[in-house]
């Protein structure tokens, strides 16, 4: 078999369907024998999923190899999950996180639960964390609200569209936004965006208290970390192209982020012990 390094000796990975109302979520559990923490990965949204898939899987494996149990999944209506994308709402995708968090927390209750979201996933994770469903929160490139995440996707898509178009046929991002605001659905990279999705995205925001770049913990003392990813982290950060940037080595990013998760888990355990009087 040419050009492939030896298969990595990965820990057990279990793809499975997780039932939610009206659909099945595609999940992959990266098992760790005696986990020091459990992480629910809330990944990029819609077409961004495909561009970031390889580094996202590698991140899950990186954590599992360091004794952190990871559950990653596809949003309802996206990727391998079932469901009709255009009829789904942010409430549905929020419910996904709540149900999966409950499942993951029940597996090894003694290990702290960390929510980790990227871009749109950070918005969803941030809001879920605010409802006290995890012990720590890690956000990569969180936008203030879901609309900014959608705009970033739209801008990238329009950029690609323009490569194939000349002169007057080329349409700008604002042309498409105008159509959406006039009630016309927009097909972005194969996903039908509804006007409702666009309108709802403005109000679907990360709680303000979690958005300061200086933040280290929330009002309850739970660890919080925000990491802004630049172009060097593409396609996890801005830009990048499939088949090139997604195959890079991300150890420079993964190692310090793992260190933070391990530290946050330790802090959480100490807090729990302190609270219970041990």
């Amino acid at each position, binding site marked *: *078999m*040419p*050009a*492939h*390094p*030896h*298969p*990595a000796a*990965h820990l057990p*990975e*279990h*793809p*499975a*369907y*997780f*039932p939610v109302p009206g659909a*099945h979520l*595609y*999940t*992959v*559990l990266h098992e760790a024998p005696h986990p020091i923490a459990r992480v629910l990965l809330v990944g990029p949204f819609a*077409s961004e*999923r*495909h561009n970031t*898939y*390889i580094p996202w*899987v590698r991140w899950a494996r990186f954590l599992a190899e360091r004794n952190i149990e990871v559950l990653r999944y596809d949003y309802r209506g*996206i*990727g*391998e999950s*079932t469901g009709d994308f255009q009829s789904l709402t942010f409430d549905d995708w929020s419910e996904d996180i709540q149900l999966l968090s409950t499942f993951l927390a029940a597996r090894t209750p003694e290990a702290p639960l960390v929510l980790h979201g990227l871009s749109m996933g950070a918005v969803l994770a941030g809001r879920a964390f605010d409802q006290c469903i995890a012990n720590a929160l890690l956000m990569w490139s969180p936008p203030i609200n879901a609309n900014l995440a959608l705009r970033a996707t739209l801008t990238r898509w329009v950029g690609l*569209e*323009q*490569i*194939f*178009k*000349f*002169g007057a046929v*080329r349409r700008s991002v604002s042309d498409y936004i105008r159509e959406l605001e006039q009630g016309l659905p927009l*097909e972005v*990279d*194969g*996903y*039908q965006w509804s006007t409702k999705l666009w309108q709802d995205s403005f109000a679907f925001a990360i709680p303000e208290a979690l958005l300061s770049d200086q933040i280290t913990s929330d009002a309850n003392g739970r660890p919080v970390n925000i990491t802004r990813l630049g172009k060097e982290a593409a396609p996890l950060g801005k830009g990048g192209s*499939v*088949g*090139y940037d*997604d*195959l*890079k080595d991300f150890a420079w990013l993964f190692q310090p982020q793992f260190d933070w998760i391990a530290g946050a888990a330790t802090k959480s355990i100490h807090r729990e012990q302190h609270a219970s009087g041990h």
Partner: protein
Amino acid sequence: MLQAIDTRELISLDILGYCLRGTFHRPAGDTSVSWSLPASALNRAPGGPAVLFLNSLALPRAAAGDSAVYWADAFALRGYPTFRFDLPGLGDSDGHASTDLLDVINTGGLAPATAAIAKELVGRGGYSSIILVGHCAGAVTAIFAAAAFKKCKGLILLDPYFHLPVINRPETRKKLSDWARRSTLGKFLSNLYDRARHLWLLLRGSTLPRNANTALLGKWKELSAAGIPVLLFQAARIKAQVGKPRVGEFDYTQHISKLAARKNNLAVKPIDRADHSFANRAGREVVRDESLAFLANNFPLPNTTSRTK
């Protein structure tokens, strides 16, 4: 947690030392078929064809806009057992794709794993043949793999390419192209450049360009000689008429059509409303309908009366 739902099952195969993960779209009318059953139980209706989707470059097996899921659902609904697998290092499968993935693909590096998957499906599922579906780089792998495994009896190819990438295209050239797309003068100069290239092409006659993927064309020739049915989709291209290359570019479609002419088993379907991903609604619907017709004509199911129409 479930391994299977009504229409799909999550499966894995040990191929060349890798655990490869995929999705089995159960054929309609026989959704009790489970890959987890013993081979003897699975192999209860031997003789029919199965469809296997491949990754497009580094995309996961769902493909852009989940188009592969959409097509696989449609094929299974029509009664075709359909599989989507992540090749080594891609999607959820084991392995570590190298940074020169495109070179690996263009030299047929993913074909052994693809052929081994197809062989395993035939061996375990009792299928008479496998039809490979590949998009862009996945189409390149499909051609190499079909030549490597005789029971790959059909191909559905979306925007395959038969050339090797030009290495180190200067940054200034990229900027110039972008400027040409935006300005009127740029467009004029770009057209002039295309005409000059066209003239050069006429002078060269039918000689292949220097960056033609001759190994791939060799495999195409083998498949054409064997008379393997191929359905080839072409999306709209920049500065090109439907089904034609851009002025000044070598017409690979014409070239491969000539190679396939003797057996006449190649159908080319240009789709002017599809972009290269074929994920947009217009593109995916045409691909679905034409592919189903292609399957019905060339690979009829053993007992079509029991299938959902």
